[in-house]
């Protein structure tokens, strides 16, 4: 009998403690507002960085493929120069840590700017662009060369063939990898903490500093990230299925 009473008491105690911690982390002083603000910053940086990254990625991928697919004996000097610039960009961005790029961006290149969101979007957008460009290039290369030849033989120009025939097929190939990149980007934005931007992670650390209790804020943001990623995975899955059914 004694044993069960102790067990029940311990159980109640544990949950009371947990509820108390939850209270302190999220309810007291409306601290949940800090988390929602942090979430807002995280999403803001992710979305704009993604837009910038995809824009840069498409641009670079088109230059790189146009250069690789140029006809022998019909070289274009402008394209060659752009291609070299793109290659250097991809090498540098993929060859250095995101954290270092972030710090250089904020403390060296934009040392005089205090617009942390702007700098973060730029740093992540430029970083993401390098990866997205290779994803897109891979997708374009994966489309059968016969498709380009068929388009050109009908009289379409290179750009029209790309737009009407190659890109629509490449998108389907690209989508899973692009979803992956978006998920990585969402989680990687936590690095903005190092320049002092108040994203989800920074806010959790702030709350921890007030309550001296790490458990609730950290587990809390882990759950938030997890839910967001699951949501994105689901969305991309739906999109893929919809694109695939158009061929059946």
């Amino acid at each position: 009998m004694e044993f069960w009473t102790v067990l029940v008491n311990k159980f109640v105690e544990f949950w009371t403690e947990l509820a108390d911690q939850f209270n302190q982390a999220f309810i007291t002083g409306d601290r949940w507002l800090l988390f929602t603000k942090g979430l807002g910053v995280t999403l803001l940086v992710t979305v704009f960085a993604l837009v910038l990254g995809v824009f840069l990625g498409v641009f670079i991928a088109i230059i790189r493929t146009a250069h690789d697919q140029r006809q022998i004996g019909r070289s274009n000097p402008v394209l060659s120069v752009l291609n070299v610039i793109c290659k250097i960009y991809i090498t540098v961005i993929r060859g250095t840590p995101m954290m270092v790029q972030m710090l250089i961006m904020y403390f060296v290149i934009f040392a005089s700017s205090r617009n942390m969101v702007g700098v973060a979007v730029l740093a992540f957008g430029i970083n993401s662009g390098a990866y997205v460009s290779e994803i897109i290039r891979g997708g374009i290369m994966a489309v059968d060369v016969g498709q380009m030849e068929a388009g050109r033989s009908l009289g379409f120009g290179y750009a029209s063939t790309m737009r009407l025939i190659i890109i629509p097929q490449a998108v389907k190939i690209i989508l899973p990898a692009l979803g992956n990149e978006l998920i990585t980007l969402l989680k990687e934005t936590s690095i903005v903490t190092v320049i002092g931007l108040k994203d989800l992670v920074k806010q959790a650390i702030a709350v921890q500093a007030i309550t001296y209790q790490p458990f609730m804020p950290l587990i809390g943001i882990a759950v938030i990230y997890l839910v967001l990623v699951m949501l994105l995975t689901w969305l991309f899955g739906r999109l893929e299925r919809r694109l695939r059914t158009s061929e059946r």
Partner: protein
Amino acid sequence: MSDNTLISVNDLKKYYNGDKIKALDGISAEINRGEVVVVIGPSGSGKSTFLRCLNLLEIPTFGHILFNGVDITDPKIDINLHRQKMGMVFQHFNLFPHMTVLKNMTAAPIRLLKNSKGQAEEQAMALLKRVGLEDRANAYPSQLSGGQKQRIAIIRALCMNPDVMLFDEPTSALDPEMVGEVLDVMKQLAREGMTMVVVTHEMGFAKEVASRVIFMDEGKIVEENEPVSMFENPQSERLKSFLAKVL
């Protein structure tokens, strides 16, 4: 070069790796309006390269190609305009998998010839009817058999009202029982007076339909004649041994 000449090829050369590989080593030929020229030869003889040079899918290293009197090897001309007049059919069909059959056929006429959608679709449906595939207009290529795909590929090219049709081994990727249906469409086309250049291994087709046969080997034209003399009275040793193997 007479008025009747549609394509005139003059000393065409195509080298790869500098000049290590000579895929085409000085080809001169003329293709007249209404002619069906069949190009035969062993694999690696350069016959596909020759055909692909005609609409500049391969850029020749040397030589000139006159099409309708215009030198299309001149980098300054707009090759896209000339390609509209040269239909091409590939070994692997190359239909656009993300478009329906009808879209495959109407995309180029609508965008390049500025035909109205209704006009382009009417033309496409008439062609589909001719090859007996009018019920597949809204199907996607993945739902078609190889023979059906190739017939669609042929009429897709016809939608642009080309002056000449280039066929690059159109039956080589087909199951044997589907070869006939594709050859029938090509024969019909030949009877209607379409100018055709056909690279093929179908000697029966060459005998029956060709107005002229070109035999190529090692990047050169070895022999050129009308089909009966070509097959019954080959001159060169190379052609004799080739025919002995394939017939």
